[in-house]
């Protein structure tokens, strides 16, 4: 089952996503509270998939996505965010995100997205 790095500044969201992913058979190997830590943890942990929020302090999720893809073009990043504007979705996908989930999410959608991303 895929190893996941969860990136979100909200403790609530990291806890909720961890439960959804663990119940869905995934292994959560790490967590990060902002984009800068996400880039560092990605390099340490080399997860199969990253679940990335967008609105975060220090470094936002789009910037972190671009940095991770620069270091590891093969990285699989799923954006998981409250922002659903078409422009932001397109920017994320063009920057290399595998998928885009808008919060609040359904657990099944998250697991389906992770399965698709990890088998791509």
């Amino acid at each position: 089952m895929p190893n996941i790095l969860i990136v979100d500044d909200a403790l609530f969201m990291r806890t909720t996503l961890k439960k959804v992913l663990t119940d869905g058979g995934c292994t959560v190997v790490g967590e990060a509270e902002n984009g800068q830590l996400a880039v560092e943890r990605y390099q340490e942990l080399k997860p199969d998939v990253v679940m990335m929020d967008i609105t975060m302090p220090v470094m936002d999720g789009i910037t972190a996505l671009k940095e991770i893809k620069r270091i590891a073009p093969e990285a699989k990043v799923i954006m998981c965010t409250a922002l659903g504007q078409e422009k932001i979705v397109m920017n994320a996908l063009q920057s290399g995100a595998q998928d885009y989930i808008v919060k609040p999410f359904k657990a099944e959608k998250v697991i389906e997205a992770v399965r698709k991303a990890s088998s791509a």
Partner: protein
Amino acid sequence: MRAEFINPFVAAGIQVLDSVTGAAPQPGQLAVRSATFTTQQVSIVIGVTGSVVGQVVYGLSLVTATKIAAAMSSIPVMTFDDFASSSVAELGNMISGHATTLLADAGYDCQITPPTIIRGANIEICTATPALVVPLHTDFGKIEINVALKEAAAPIQVHTVSPSEADPAADPA
């Protein structure tokens, strides 16, 4: 301060609360609030930038905040601890995120800041403009949505001119 800026937050609030708690709240009466107002026991403050600028403040009592955190969560929530605080902050984030999507659909592109939680009684908050406020009545108590937003000023255009353009009568020698 325009009603068209609060409507997306009310619509998003109803949709998000229905989704995360299983019960759609009922909106109350729209009111105007001055730029300086006393908060409820828990306030979630979110900044907005872009075509529309200002702040959105979600206000609720400690009891309501704890009950909503419990309803949102997959783990038991008995007190308003860091986890509960993070839950309602994320609620503010989700409502605001959805609202900015609705604002974008109406032609106003904007971004939101990460939420700030303020706890305590009788705290005064000062927003950039007077706020429009709508209460949402949920099964867990009332949430007030205070929207203090205005359209961003058009950027000032600066033109440089030469001295002769500035004063054609001046002798350049």
